[in-house]
C-alpha cells in the first residue's frame, strides 16, 4: 500500500494479481516533495507551475500585444479575441462599459492566470492543476474581496458600506434583526470562501477523477485486468476532454462572479 504521502501514486510499480493493493490516490496526491529548499523555504511543483503560468500568460500577451498593429497579425488577433471575450463578454456585460473599464485589466489577468493554472492538469509531465492547492484560488479570491470591500467603502462611505454589507433596505422592520447578521455573514465571510472553494473543489475533484482512472488503468494492466484497463483508459481520455472544458469554465465562472461582486459595490443600494 502506497501510504507514503511524499510519493506520487504513479510511481508505484504495482499491478493487480501481483499481490499488492490498489495504490488509491487521495490527499497524498496533492502533497509534493520540495524541488529545492532555499533558507527553509520549500519550493515545490505547484509553485513552479504557478510561476510557469505567469511566464506563459505574460509571454503570450507580450508576443501578442507588445507591438500591436492596427492591422493585427495572427497572434495579435488571437490575443484580441481572448481580451475581447473577457472585456466585453464578462466585464462590460456585468458592470457596464463605463464603470467596468477600470476593472478590465484585473479581470483579464484573473481569467488567463486561472485558466493556465487549471490547464496544467492535462499537460503531460505537469499534470497537476495548480488551483487544486487552495492557497492559489484563496489568494485570488482575497484580491477580489479586498477590491470589492475598499470600493464599497469608497463609494458609499462608512455608513453606506456597512448598510450595503448588511443588506439594509427600507421597510425591513423587525426582520432586519434576522437579515443583517445573515447578510453580513453571507457577504463578508461566506462569499469569499465559496468563491475560493468553487474553483478549488472543481479542480481538486477533477484531478482526483483523472488520477483514479489513470492509476486504475495502470494498476489493472495485468492478465484479465487488461479489459478493465482499457475501460479505464477510455475514461481517462473522456475525462481529459471534460477537464479541458471544466478548466476554462471554472476560470470563466470565477471572473464572472468577481465582476458581479465588484458591480455590487458600484451599483450599491
Amino acid at each position, binding site marked *: 500500500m502506497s*501510504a*507514503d*504521502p511524499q510519493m506520487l501514486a504513479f510511481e508505484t510499480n504495482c499491478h493487480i494479481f501481483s499481490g499488492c493493493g490498489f495504490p488509491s490516490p*487521495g*490527499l*497524498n496526491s*496533492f*502533497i509534493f516533495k520540495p524541488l529545492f529548499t532555499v533558507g527553509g*523555504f*520549500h519550493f515545490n511543483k*505547484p*509553485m513552479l507551475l*504557478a*510561476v510557469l*503560468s*505567469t511566464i506563459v*500568460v*505574460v509571454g503570450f*500577451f*507580450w508576443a*501578442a*500585444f*507588445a507591438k*500591436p*498593429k*492596427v492591422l*493585427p497579425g495572427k497572434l*495579435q488577433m488571437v*490575443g*484580441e479575441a481572448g*481580451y475581447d471575450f473577457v472585456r466585453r463578454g464578462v466585464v462590460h456585460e456585468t458592470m457596464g462599459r463605463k464603470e467596468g473599464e477600470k476593472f*478590465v*485589466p*484585473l479581470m*483579464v*489577468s*484573473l481569467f*488567463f*492566470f486561472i485558466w493556465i493554472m487549471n490547464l496544467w492538469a492535462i499537460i503531460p509531465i505537469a499534470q497537476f492543476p*495548480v488551483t487544486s*492547492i*487552495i*492557497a*492559489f484560488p*484563496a*489568494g*485570488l479570491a482575497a*484580491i477580489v474581496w479586498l477590491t470589492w470591500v475598499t470600493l464599497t467603502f469608497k463609494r458609499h462611505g462608512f455608513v453606506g458600506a456597512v448598510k450595503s454589507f448588511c443588506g439594509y433596505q427600507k421597510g425591513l422592520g423587525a426582520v432586519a434583526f434576522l437579515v443583517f447578521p445573515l447578510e453580513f455573514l453571507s457577504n463578508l465571510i461566506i462569499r469569499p470562501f465559496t468563491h475560493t*472553494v468553487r474553483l*478549488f473543489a472543481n479542480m*481538486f475533484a477533477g484531478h482526483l477523477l483523472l488520477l483514479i482512472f489513470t492509476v486504475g488503468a495502470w494498476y489493472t494492466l495485468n492478465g484479465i485486468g487488461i479489459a478493465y484497463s482499457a475501460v479505464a483508459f477510455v475514461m481517462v481520455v473522456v475525462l481529459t476532454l471534460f477537464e479541458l472544458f471544466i478548466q476554462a469554465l471554472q476560470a470563466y465562472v470565477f471572473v464572472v462572479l468577481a465582476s458581479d461582486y465588484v458591480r455590487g459595490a458600484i451599483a450599491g443600494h
Partner: protein
Amino acid sequence: MTLLQIAAEAENPLVPPLPELVIGLVAFFIVFGFLGKVLLPRINKVLEQRHEAIEGGMEKAEAAQAEAEATLEQYRQQLAEARHEANRLRQEAQEQGAALIAEMRSEGQRQREEIIAAGHAQIEADRKQAALALRQDVGKLATELAAKLVGESLEEHARQSRVIDRFLDELEEKAEATR
C-alpha cells in the same frame, strides 16, 4: 498513526499554506502588472486607433457620398435649366421665325401691290398718251380730210373752234356707253 493521517492533519486541503499563498499572489501580481500597466494599454490604444480609422473611413465615405449626391443634384438642376433655356430659345426662334415670315409675306404683298399699281399707272399713262396721240392724229386726219373735202385749210379754225375735240369726245362717250 499512519503517515497518511499525519499528512492529512498537517495538510488540511482547506487550509491554505502560506508559502503557496505568497507565491500565488506574487505570480498573479506579475501577470497583473504586465497586463495592466504595459500590454493592455497598448492594445487599447491600437483598438481605439482602429475604431477611429474605421469610423473615419466611414465618415469619409459618407462625406464623399453626400458630395456626389450634391453634385448630381447640381447637374440635374443645371440640366433642367439648360433644357428650359433651350425650350425657351426654340420657342423664341419659332416666334421670331413666324414673325419674320409674316413680315416678309406682308412685304411681298406690299411689293406686289406696288408693282401692280405701278403697272396700272403705266398702262393708264400709256393709254392716256396713246389716246392723246390718237386724238391729235385723228383730229389732224379729220381736219386734213375735211380740208381736202372743203378745199381750204380749216386747220386754224378747227383748232380754235374745238369742233373736232367735241366730236371726238362724243365719239368716246358713245363708245363708253356701248361698252
